[in-house]
């Protein structure tokens, strides 16, 4: 199995598709850091504060960048890039015909699926957490370090050390969410020969779920929808710590990941390879 995994990694790092996500995120982070350094979209908040407070220091720093980056990427860039890779791992080989070549070797279909899924997981986790690390490093270079200040139902100030721990946990939670999204895309790819279909299906499920969760008629489904829990990381920064909610969110994400993987494995083991 280790051989299979090494081979899958070897193939993966040679595919240009793997680098689209990291490149895009790097450019995005750079743009946001430069933008925050040279303009201050939150100036109105500071002026409002200075009416009643003596304010010292800046809250536009690396921690601030990391926190606000999450708002913009959790439902857009990260799921898209996760699906682009996870939905391509099997479907592209089916489209190219190399899946035939693989399966004509003394290797079980389960080995193929497992090794590819592990690569998918590694990519998603690396992308999500790597984004956070890169944002903090770039934020430090451009904006400096300091406490994390949030304006949400009051003012929340987290000292730098606490902020770093919470941000790490937030990105880890987002990574778990993206793993679930990528797993859905992976599962769809096991019966398609077109990675675009897998990407589109997974993104469609994601956005459809986001719409459904807001409709009163489907409120009974809400606790079980993935999108309900994708932004659980907000609660790491404001409000009292609700361990039960976090555990539930993590459990839902893990269930989605495991169920998607299991479905993909079953489908792939049973399907006829006709491409």
């Amino acid at each position, binding site marked *: 199995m280790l*051989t*299979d995994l090494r*081979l899958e990694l*070897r*193939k993966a790092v*040679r*595919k*240009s598709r793997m680098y689209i996500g990291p490149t895009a995120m790097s450019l995005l982070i750079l743009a946001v850091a430069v933008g925050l350094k040279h303009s201050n979209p939150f100036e109105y908040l500071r002026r409002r504060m200075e009416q009643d407070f003596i304010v010292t220091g800046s809250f536009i720093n690396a921690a601030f960048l990391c926190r606000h980056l999450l708002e913009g990427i959790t439902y857009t860039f990260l799921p898209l890039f996760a699906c682009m890779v996870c939905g391509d791992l099997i479907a592209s080989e089916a489209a*190219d*015909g*190399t899946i*035939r*070549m*693989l*399966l*004509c*070797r*003394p*290797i*079980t279909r389960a080995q193929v699926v497992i090794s590819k899924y592990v690569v998918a997981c590694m990519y998603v986790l690396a992308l999500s957490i790597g984004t956070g690390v890169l944002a903090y490093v770039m934020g430090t270079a451009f904006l400096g370090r300091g406490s994390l200040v949030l304006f949400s139902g009051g003012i929340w100030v987290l000292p730098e050390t606490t902020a770093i721990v919470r941000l790490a946990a937030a990105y880890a939670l987002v990574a778990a969410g993206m793993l679930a999204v990528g797993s859905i895309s992976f599962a769809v790819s096991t019966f398609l020969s077109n990675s675009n279909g897998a990407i589109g299906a997974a993104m469609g499920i994601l956005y459809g779920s986001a719409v459904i969760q807001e409709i009163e008629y489907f409120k009974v489904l809400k606790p079980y929808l993935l999108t309900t829990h994708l932004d659980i990381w907000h609660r790491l920064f404001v409000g009292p710590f609700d361990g039960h909610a976090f555990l539930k969110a993590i459990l839902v994400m893990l269930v989605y990941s495991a169920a998607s993987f299991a479905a993909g494995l079953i489908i792939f083991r*049973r399907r*006829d*390879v*006709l491409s």
Partner: protein
Amino acid sequence: MSEVVLETIKLAKNFRTRRAVDDLSLRVYEGDVYGFLGPNGAGKSTTIRMLTGLVRPNRGTARLLGFDVRTRHMDAMRNVGAIVETPAFYKYLSARENLSIFSRLSGGCDRRRIDQILDTVGLLDRANDKVKVFSHGMIQRLGIAQALLPNPKLVILDEPTSGLDPQGMKDVRELILRLANEEKITVFLSSHMLHEVEQVCNRVGVINRGKLIAEGEVKELLRHELDIVEFTVDDSTRAADILGRLDSLKVLSCEDGRVAVQSPAELISEANRTLVMGGLAVSAIVPKMMNLEDLFLKLVQEGGRAD
């Protein structure tokens, strides 16, 4: 009796309402170069996919080297090399890297062997080029190379000469013969190039509409068809009419002063006498050698079965 290295027992596959393979039972023995023939859509590729585990049969069993392909896939494929339809490779990797990856999945082999195989198929000087720049013929040869990686006892080749130029085809034919004769590798190949199959294969199986309609040694199959004689006469129409009235003789064709008939050998002289007594001038009596293509076309048109 040689060992059976490839066997199908009542193999069947349906795709929705279409029966692609129907009750297929064939055997390939150690040392055979077995040609698997059939028109387009006959079920050849589906059979090969079932033999390699790509497609699950609805009924029946496929065995390679004694192992059931479905239940013991890893054991079945361990000493088998296969090309199923057009070989496919990772275009962003070089030829050598592709072979390295596939070899590791088959237990691994060192760089020297990879280079040796690349040399065998004439691609050693292109080993470091990315596959995306390869021509169809080069990809075909690389496909044969990957089939040879695991030092196989059995090689399954689906249209191995497809896309090759005449020299390439000749090289592949010679390679197949070398594999069979020198390295004692059993070869199971499907092809449309019947004259090639006739040159390299000792046994063939003909499939049509999913059913095996003929199987056996090439010479034996053709011997059945050796009772054809062509008369060269001055009036082929009258000759065909006269010969058509004879029992145990069948007129096959009549054109341009030549009449071909199928008849047991002992009746040819009587047929000749009948023509001469009928006032016809017989200038030549030539036994016709049917080739595999003729046999194939005949079988497919008849849809019959010959053993």
